[in-house]
Structures are given as structure tokens and as C-alpha cells.
């Protein structure tokens, strides 16, 4: 089967991931229940006349996309695919608030125009002058995964050689308030480096954007091959997840013993992390495990941060200390299985292999 390579990756997150240099070298530790991105100077990519209409999530997306393209040495991708669950929430909030406050009178167009989910993909295309395929997937906890699937299918059918694909979501005061009502987040601030051992329900809210330039040929700096991806929606019980992982590995001609490092989406919610315990116990009892949501917070496309981390681990052949959850990473890391779930309903697997 045609190999697909991660030729460039870019990430804007609550860590200093846009700054370059060694991964997570300057760890940002927080003691709060919501994490915001560490924003780079977006004016390095966006003209000051255009930036004024862009909300944070649009800037995040454009920034991460540019970082990814720069890393891949690509000026113009053959397609742009994005995944976002919440889209441009801030502009949606602005628009709706004005509708209510002004009783649907004298509404300005900017916030409405910028509030759609595909604004980010559109803005990246406008800035690049890219008239190629442009699609946005809005599938809750599978938004990024389905963007990846679309990208993989396009690359395999040969209709594109290099595709820019990314996942992103923002957190706004409105969304935090609404999501808090569902009991998603912890009631008290928690130290992020202690989150994964938290004995209580709820997690910390996060946000971010992660983009990747995927291609059918490796570049000079390529470290990882995207070997496989699979999703599982609303499993009935733990056994279904375990069976799905086994089948996924078999389909890729692997067994659990072939996996050098497990990267999980543990988020410190004692109820939601139980499934990771079950999976580890059943399939990966002695495997080293890294995690990432204590670094970026929980959001529907957080798996993008996980994939960015896994790609960086394969490039560095080392796991940042802050990301290590259990055991010790082997000296050579050839295969990483990324297992994440969002809200217990959206389970996904991403398999990455090291490119020598």
C-alpha cells in the first residue's frame, strides 16, 4: 500500500510549540481549569490589514498551517483539509450577542462572515492563493480524524501529492461556561503536571491548532510515516475497544509487541481515564506510555496535538519528560500507537512509524 509521510508539522497550543527548538523545552505549567494558547507573533504570516478581522482560532490555524508548510518546505499544497468541532466560536458569539442586544437590527457582516466552520480553511487558502480542493470536517470528536481520512484517501487515489491537513478548536468564555454546565471540567484549579493522577471527575479545558503536511514522498526532514488510522464510535463496552485495537493492529500486520510507545489521551477525569487503564492492562501491560492532554487541555481535536507530539518523538527519538506517563521509552522508537477518546464516545487510533 502507498506510504504516506508527515513531511511537516506545526502546532499552536498552550505550550510554546510555535517557538521551534527542542520539543517542550520550556514547559508551561499551569494551575487552572482552562488553558489558552501561547500565541506567536501572527504578523509574521498575516498582513496587518487582514489580521484585524481574524479571531484567535483563525490566527491559530493560519499560524500552525504556515509552520507545517515551512517545515515541509512546501509553498503551495495540492489541497487543504481542516477538522474542527466548534469552528469559529468567538465570532459566532459576537454575532449572536449583537443579534440579541440589538434586536436583530444594524448587524455588521464581519463576525457573521467569519463565524462559519470553514473560515480557517478558507483564510489559509486566501493567504496562500490556493484554489485547490478545500474541505472542512465538522464531526465533533472525529473532526480531525475524518480530515485525516479524507487526506489519506486523496493521496492514495493519486489526486494530490502534498496535502495540508489540520485540526483546531478554540475555547471562549461562552463555550467554557456552557461546557462547564455539562460537568466536563474540574471544579477547582489543578496543577497540570498533577492532572493525570487526579482522583476526581472532570478535566481541564484546552484549545489549539495542529497542522500537518502529508505527502506520498518523504522530504529531507521527514521522521514519520502515517501508517494507519481508525475510529470507533460509541463502543458498548471496554472489550469492544480492545477488540478494535487488536483488529487495527492486525490489519496493519502488527501485534501489541510491535508497538514501542503508547501515546494516550488521558485527561485526568477518573471516569474517562478508566478505559485507558483497561486497554493498557489488556494489551500493553509493560509498554511505556506517554500522554498529552495535561499539556494542551481537552478539546474535540486535541488528538492533533497528540499526533504532533508523536511525530516529534519519532523525530527526536526521545520522549519529553513532561509527556512521559509510565515506564521508560526505549532507545529506539520505531512504532507509536496513539489512542485517544473524546467524551467516551469518539475513540480513535493513529499509528505512526519512524522513517529512517
Amino acid at each position, binding site marked *: 500500500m502507498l506510504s504516506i509521510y508527515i513531511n511537516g508539522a506545526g502546532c499552536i497550543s498552550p505550550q510554546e510549540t510555535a517557538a521551534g527548538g527542542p520539543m517542550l523545552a520550556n514547559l508551561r505549567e499551569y494551575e487552572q481549569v482552562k488553558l489558552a494558547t501561547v500565541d506567536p507573533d501572527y504578523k509574521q504570516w498575516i498582513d*496587518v490589514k487582514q489580521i*484585524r*478581522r481574524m479571531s484567535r482560532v483563525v490566527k491559530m490555524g493560519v499560524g500552525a498551517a504556515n509552520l507545517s508548510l515551512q517545515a515541509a518546505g512546501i509553498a503551495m499544497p495540492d489541497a487543504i483539509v481542516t477538522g474542527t468541532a466548534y469552528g469559529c466560536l468567538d465570532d459566532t458569539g459576537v454575532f449572536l450577542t449583537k443579534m440579541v442586544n440589538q434586536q436583530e437590527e*444594524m448587524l455588521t*457582516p464581519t463576525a457573521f462572515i467569519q463565524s462559519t466552520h470553514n473560515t480557517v480553511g478558507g483564510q489559509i487558502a486566501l493567504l496562500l492563493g490556493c484554489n485547490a480542493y478545500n474541505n472542512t470536517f465538522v464531526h465533533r470528536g472525529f473532526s480531525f480524524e475524518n480530515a485525516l481520512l479524507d487526506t489519506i484517501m486523496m493521496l492514495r487515489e493519486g489526486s494530490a501529492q502534498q496535502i495540508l491537513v489540520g485540526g483546531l478548536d478554540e475555547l471562549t468564555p461562552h463555550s467554557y461556561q456552557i461546557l462547564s454546565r455539562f460537568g466536563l471540567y474540574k471544579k477547582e484549579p489543578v496543577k497540570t503536571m498533577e492532572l493525570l493522577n487526579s482522583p476526581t471527575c472532570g478535566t481541564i479545558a484546552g484549545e489549539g491548532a495542529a497542522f500537518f503536511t502529508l505527502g506520498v514522498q518523504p522530504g529531507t526532514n521527514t521522521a514519520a510515516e502515517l501508517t494507519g488510522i481508525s475510529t470507533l464510535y460509541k463502543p458498548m463496552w471496554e472489550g469492544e475497544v480492545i477488540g478494535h485495537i487488536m483488529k487495527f493492529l492486525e490489519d496493519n500486520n502488527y501485534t501489541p509487541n510491535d508497538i514501542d510507545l503508547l501515546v494516550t489521551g488521558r485527561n485526568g477525569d477518573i471516569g474517562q481515564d478508566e478505559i485507558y487503564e483497561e486497554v493498557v492492562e489488556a494489551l500493553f501491560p509493560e509498554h511505556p506510555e506517554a500522554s498529552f492532554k495535561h499539556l494542551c487541555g481537552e478539546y474535540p481535536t486535541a488528538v492533533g496535538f497528540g499526533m504532533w507530539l508523536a511525530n516529534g518523538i519519532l523525530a527526536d527519538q526521545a520522549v519529553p519528560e513532561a509527556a512521559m506517563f509510565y515506564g521508560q521509552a526505549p532507545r529506539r522508537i520505531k512504532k507509536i500507537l496513539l489512542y485517544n477518546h473524546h467524551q467516551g464516545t469518539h475513540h480513535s487510533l493513529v499509528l505512526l512509524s519512524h522513517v529512517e
Partner: protein
Amino acid sequence: MEQLMADLKKQIIEQLNLQEVTPESIGNDEPLFKEGLGLDSIDALELIVLLQQHYNIRIANPEQGPEIFYSIRSMAEFIVAQQTAKA
């Protein structure tokens, strides 16, 4: 008129979220669109709403737009003319 033009500059900067632009840097007779401040058609809609919100003025004939929104001075003159007519 001077005070009105000063107010308009502040309101435009706020409404259009113009970054790195100060009221002092906008000339009274400088074109607002294209070569001047570089505003575009979306900004024109924002300016129409600005006139409604701050001055309770509706533009009856859209074809007058380019003339009214040519510069800060032309906007101020239009506002004064409308307010005088109402009085």
C-alpha cells in the same frame, strides 16, 4: 466639524478593528478606500452601520456611498447635512 471628524476617526478605528492605526495618522481628506486606509466592501457595510448606530442616519441611496465614504471630511459633511435637514 473638527470635533466630529476626530470622533469619526476614533469610531472607525474601533468599529473596523484597525490595528497600528491612530486617529492622528488618518488625514481628513485622505481616501478611506483602496490607496488610503485600504478599506474594502465589507468595511463599507460596517461604515453604513456605524452611521446608523452613532448618528441615526440611514443611507437612502446606495449609489451615494462612494461619495459619502470618500474621506473623513466627506463623511462628516454628510452627517452635518443630514442633521441640519432633520432639524
